[in-house]
């Protein structure tokens, strides 16, 4: 349980410490990657809580979402339509939905614990 959190902290530390310069043209791609990563992360947490978690779905979802978003952004840049907004919109909506689901599940679990304590 603590391993992913450790990995997250390690990754953030690595990202902060490395001084990689990305050209301004690719900043759109980065924003999409961030959103995709967050979406996948919360999606994974939600799946875990709903007990429908699957490794393959999680991993393939992570990479496929990032690839799709990057492809959309690439296409958008080249045909002059801001298609990356679609990816951002989709990811944003899903992010909120996932977080809402997580919140509800956590709330129900908290309630269950309270009732258990009272029963004891």
């Amino acid at each position, binding site marked *: 349980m603590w*391993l*992913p*959190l*450790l*990995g*997250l*902290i*390690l*990754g*953030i*530390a*690595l*990202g*902060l*410490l*490395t*001084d*990689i*310069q*990305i050209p301004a043209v690719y*900043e759109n791609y*980065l*924003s999409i*990657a*961030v959103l995709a*990563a*967050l979406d*996948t*992360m919360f999606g*994974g947490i939600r799946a875990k809580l709903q007990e429908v978690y699957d*490794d393959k779905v*999680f*991993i393939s979802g*992570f990479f496929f979402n990032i690839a799709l978003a990057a492809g959309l952004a690439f296409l958008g840049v080249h045909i002059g339509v801001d298609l990356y907004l679609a990816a951002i919109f989709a990811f944003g909506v899903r992010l909120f939905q996932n977080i809402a689901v997580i919140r509800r599940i956590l709330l129900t679990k908290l309630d269950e614990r309270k009732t258990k304590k009272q029963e004891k």
Partner: protein
Amino acid sequence: MKNNQRNNRPSLFQRKYFIMLIVSIMIGFIIGISYNLTKDNKKLSSRSPIYLQQQETYREELITQQERNKELADELNHLQQTIRKYEKELTSNAEQHEDLVAEAERLRLLLGDIAGQGQGIRLTLADGEYDPNSTNPNDYIVHESHIFKVLTELKIAGAEAITINGQRLKTNSYISCNGPVITIDGKQSPAPFVIEAIGEPDTLVSSLEIPGGVFDQLLNERINVTFEKSNLISMPSNTAES
């Protein structure tokens, strides 16, 4: 089946957690990089106050430079116009100068300041032969009035320089009569008087030879006048002589 699952479980567990670790590291990495980038961008961003301030100063500098440029361009135009004016004046002045130089040359020749040479004529005025009938020798010697007549005629005819017995005449020369000799600028000259004049010989001679003119008058007064045209008469300058 259960056994199999139990055997597989630790490895599955480890693999699962390993993948989770890698994915979370990647997520963290991406987030960290984008945070870093935004931080860097903020420094360089056009919205940062330092950047704005710099932009402002640069703009002001540019404006002042442009104004200065404009001023200098105006000045340049102005100066070029002045130069053009000067050049025009210069060309007209050059023409004037040529005229002036020629004029000065002519005037110097007239003044006798410089030595001159050229075509001209040589006149000789000699006293008439002794006439025993005449009681007055003044009737047949050369007087200053005769010389005046000749000189006046010569000058009118365009003589540029005149000498009498080798002495150059200036514009302010004076000639006076002292009996048999005449005094030119304080120097005495005896007869016969050789008058040399530079000018167009034909013109000079024809002007002297006008019927009732100078020659006739001189012959009337019984003075021997001879003249010859010369292609080259050279004259000393009066400054050299005096």
